[in-house]
């Protein structure tokens, strides 16, 4: 009998420090698994516990996986402070629905990330790159606190070399090491700045919930419809399988029906944004 609570084994093969508070862990899985962009995993640190993460690596049938982690609590502290290359961790999953890639096909995709929120989006970005001819355009808007808090900086050049792909960055406050845009990520979405065919596009956003709120308001303001906006509602989850009942919005279980939700589907329910 399959034990749905039991974590499968995986070994850490590399750890990369993206920012002072964010690390990317590279895993080799004991057993291969298949996951779609937007699906997430429950990562176990033995004896400490589990936390949900959306892999930041390219989806598909994989033997390896990357997970990018912001240090913020019990499990993530242990990951940052104690886990070394060679250590064995556990994984459950994949869980959730994943992005509706078929609906996205043929459209322009606007990706809006904040902080570590670019990590789950990176997996989507790779998935889009994988079949880049299916998409009219990929516009990435990314914001972080300081230049040193931007994840995956060493990959940005490669991303912008892809056909029809643009990347716009911003940081919250002026900084000596930065001569680019300054302001919250919403400033990249101002009408005169976004170069997107609004009628023919979908937006995907991931970041802190306050950011999602203001991104959504801005998007609606510049003319997007609620059914074009997909938000990563990455709330506290325990089981990942729609049973423990802490991650719901309206009739939805974010762990099963999401975590990426179309704003149209959730907008009228209580407690959507804090």
């Amino acid at each position, binding site marked *: *009998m*399959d*034990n*749905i*609570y*039991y*974590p*499968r*084994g995986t070994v850490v093969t590399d750890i990369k420090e993206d920012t002072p508070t964010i690390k990317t862990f590279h895993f080799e899985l*004991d057993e291969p698994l298949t996951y779609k962009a937007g699906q997430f995993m429950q990562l*176990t640190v*033995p*004896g*400490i*516990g*589990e936390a949900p993460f959306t892999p930041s690596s390219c989806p598909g049938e994989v033997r390896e996986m990357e997970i990018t982690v912001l240090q*913020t*609590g019990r499990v*993530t502290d242990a990951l940052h402070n104690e886990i070394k290359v060679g250590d*064995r961790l*556990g994984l459950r999953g994949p869980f959730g629905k994943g992005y509706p890639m078929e609906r996205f096909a043929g459209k322009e995709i606007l990706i809006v990330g904040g902080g570590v929120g670019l990590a789950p989006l990176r997996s989507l970005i790779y998935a889009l790159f994988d079949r880049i001819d299916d998409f009219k355009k990929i516009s990435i808007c990314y914001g972080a606190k300081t230049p040193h808090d931007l994840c995956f900086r060493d990959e940005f050049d490669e991303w912008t070399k892809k056909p029809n792909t643009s990347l716009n960055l911003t940081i919250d406050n002026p900084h000596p090491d930065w001569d680019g845009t300054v302001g919250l990520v919403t400033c990249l979405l101002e009408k005169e700045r976004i170069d997107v065919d609004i009628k023919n596009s979908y937006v995907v956003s991931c970041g*802190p*919930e*306050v950011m999602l709120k203001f991104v959504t308001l801005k998007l609606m303001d510049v003319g997007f419809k609620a059914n074009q906006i997909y938000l990563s509602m990455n*709330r*506290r989850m*325990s*089981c990942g*399988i*729609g*049973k*423990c*009942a*802490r*991650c*719901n919005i*309206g*009739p939805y*279980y974010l762990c099963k029906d999401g975590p990426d939700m179309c704003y149209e589907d959730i907008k*009228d*329910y*209580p*407690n959507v944004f*804090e």
Partner: protein
Amino acid sequence: MDIYFLPKDELTELIEILRETGKVFWTRERDLPSNLENIRTIRIEELDEEYIMDYRVPGLRAYDIFKSFLLPLNFKVAEYPDKKWIDVELNAKKTVLLGLKSCDLVAFSMLDAVFLEDPEFMDPFYKKNRESIVIVSSDCSRIGDSCFCNLLGNTPYATSGFDLNISEVSDGYLLESGSPLGEEILEELSLPGARKKGIEERDKRREKVLKDLEKQNSKFLKAFSDLSKLVSEGYYRDEGWEPGSTCVSCGACTNVCPVCYCFTLFDRFDKKGEKSKRFMVWDSCQYKGFSQMAGGMNPRFPMMERFKNRYYHKFFRFYERYGKYKCTGCGRCIDNCLGDIDMREVLASVKIGKVVK
């Protein structure tokens, strides 16, 4: 299935057969000097020889819940050493539960829907526990102040979901089997078939209890029939929640509820620090930390948001997914509420419909 007659003094024989079937837990009404503690007098306990001779199946649901036989307060769901990852061994012995009421069985059927019948994720621990219990239910012969099963379309007697059901009549008991195992037990007792008169008396008693319930809850009839409106519209309004304002987020209501099953997975090392163990632990949506996230953000804050969510979950979200309200009408949450809140009054007060923004 056929119905048989068990003379009053032969109840002990039935109990003896149940004891051979497995470890028996029964509900027993204790003799307490005062009526004040009334709701706490019927308790679930392991069968005690001392009381077998005088045992009578209580006429009302127990103060405690049978949920813990399927989902214990905490139990190990995984154990993993550093290098080799192994599954936990599953073992559960046969357990006979005696004295469940119709509402207890309704609760089991809801838990089954969540943990057993979900085509994607079946819980192996629940399954094992579920398969190991033998259910001997009994009709309610009286009602409690907080009982409102009738408002949810349930009856104070069970018609399915049991191995055996006991109905008390004037000179003994009518026994009905609901499974091959129940049938076997009845065969062993070799009882005479119930007479028409006996069955008529049973039906009359049943009707009387149902009538009592209808009378007690008549003023809440509308509130509960309006629930179908909630299901079709999907929203509560913000007004009308005043009856819940005394909630102190103690979580008693969810802990005593036979169908509340929120849990959290909790890991820790064993004493030597060599193996890790994962436990499934009861949790409560009424606790502040239930949905709190790293960084302190909490989508269910303040208290009233959690309070509303419990109702919303029971009467809308659960219905959306499982086609039934997540409440049996047993009234335990009413009996145990520190804020003295009556679910019926809350439902009678809230307004259904979209919040106007």
